[in-house]
């Protein structure tokens, strides 16, 4: 009996390990961008140096974003962003660690509306956030996209009163990622 149980358990575990898929962002196929709209100035920046990992067995999804990777149209903005606002030398990476709340059958192709709950660490401040988006499964690849808003002041990023007209209080963030399976080494 016990032998049988062992065999079954082993079989289950091996099956699980075959399915316990980790997905990571394909090289140069993921981006995070933000957009600040204010009366005086529109600011947008794109970061393509994003690391994403998804564990399908637990619905865990995590992002790591090097702050210095944000590219602006104006290089002076980029310098100010790193020097005065997010302080990239002190807080080099922003991370998101969360879970997809819906159950998803990762073996089937399709588009799913999803909600992600988790914590975002930015500028040394960690806050709970929730974002909705879509998850598209197509063959071996998974596409994730989401848009949410961040209140700059929540993350202790101070905008001098002189620039209140130039920088929005609430910034739109867009996430796009294409993931592919990878085997843990």
């Amino acid at each position, binding site marked *: 009996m016990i032998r049988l149980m062992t065999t079954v358990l082993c079989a289950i*575990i091996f099956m699980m390990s075959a399915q316990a898929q980790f997905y*990571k962002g394909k090289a140069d196929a993921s981006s995070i961008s933000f957009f600040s709209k204010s009366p005086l100035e529109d600011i947008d920046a794109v970061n393509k140096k994003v690391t994403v990992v998804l564990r399908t067995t637990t619905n865990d999804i995590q992002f790591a974003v090097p702050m210095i990777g944000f590219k602006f149209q*104006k290089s*002076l903005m*980029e310098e100010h962003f790193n020097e*005065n606002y997010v302080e990239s030398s002190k807080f080099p990476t922003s991370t998101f*660690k969360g879970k997809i709340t819906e159950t998803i059958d990762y073996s089937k192709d399709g588009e799913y509306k999803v909600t992600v709950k988790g914590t975002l660490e930015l500028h040394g401040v960690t806050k709970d956030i929730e974002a909705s988006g879509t998850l598209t499964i197509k063959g071996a690849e998974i596409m994730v996209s989401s848009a949410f808003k961040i209140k700059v002041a929540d993350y202790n990023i101070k905008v001098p009163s002189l620039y209140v007209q*130039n920088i929005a209080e609430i910034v739109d963030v867009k996430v796009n990622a294409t993931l592919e399976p990878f085997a*843990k080494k």
Partner: protein
Amino acid sequence: MIRRLLYYLAIFLPFSVLAQDDLLTLVKEEPKNDPPRSVYATFKTTKIVNSQTIETVKKRNLDFRVTHRFGNLYNSTSANALNEAAHNAFGLDNATDIRLSFDYGITDKLTIGIGRSKYREMNDASVKWRFLTQRENNTIPVSVCIYGNMGYTSMSTNNLYAGTVRPKTNEAHRIQYASQLLIARKFNSWFSLQIMPTYIHRNFIKQQLNTNNGKEDMNDLFSLGIGGRIKLSKRFAVVADYFYNFSQFQHNNPSGYYNPLGVGIEIETGGHVFHINYTNGAAILESSLLTSTQDSWTKGQIKLGFNISRWFTL
């Protein structure tokens, strides 16, 4: 039974390692072949106090600068020094030099500029090119710029040749040059240091003798500058620079020549950078500053000054 338990454990253990919370560590050790990043913001603006910095104006930006030097705070060589200082509001009633300038970034590394200074009525054009940029991984440990400035004085012919046996008038006599190599390193987020080998050439100088050592003033002057910035907060820094002139005419001169030293604070508000400083140098343009600093810190002959910089994106 226990053997079986161990057996299960042996099977489960490797999987429990997988159940770690930080999934990101799984992909961390991937080799990155990104080019090494450039160090940014070695200095906040294109000037320390008197000297240029390795910072250039960003592409298609225009930097409008107002640089002002008031009069001497105090002059201990004067017989009635305090009374005199009080009468001109400790130098605030005088303006030793005022410079207005526009600098434009052709690329992120190449800047051209024009300016006008009150001191000796100089009109100048300048070029600054940063041909090396410090990298974060130290493959290039310093940023290096070459800076050139040509000044043309529009003063009257009488003034230009005053006190000389007037030579044949020549437009070239009005021109003076400064060339500098600016070598800077940002050591960390709050400390940057720069050295500046400088060569100045004036096409026309008045014949002057240092009666202490019999040396004459020369058309050429070599100088070595050092400057730095200590950042105290995101928007506030202390800056200072100093030039040592290799001039036998200037050293131990009875009429008094000194090496310019400037000390100031720097306040940044986004698009503006304000400098409030004290310096013994009277002039702002390098080729005038290094050849004509006749005031001394030890005699109280220092001038309050400010530099204001405003960037416009064109």
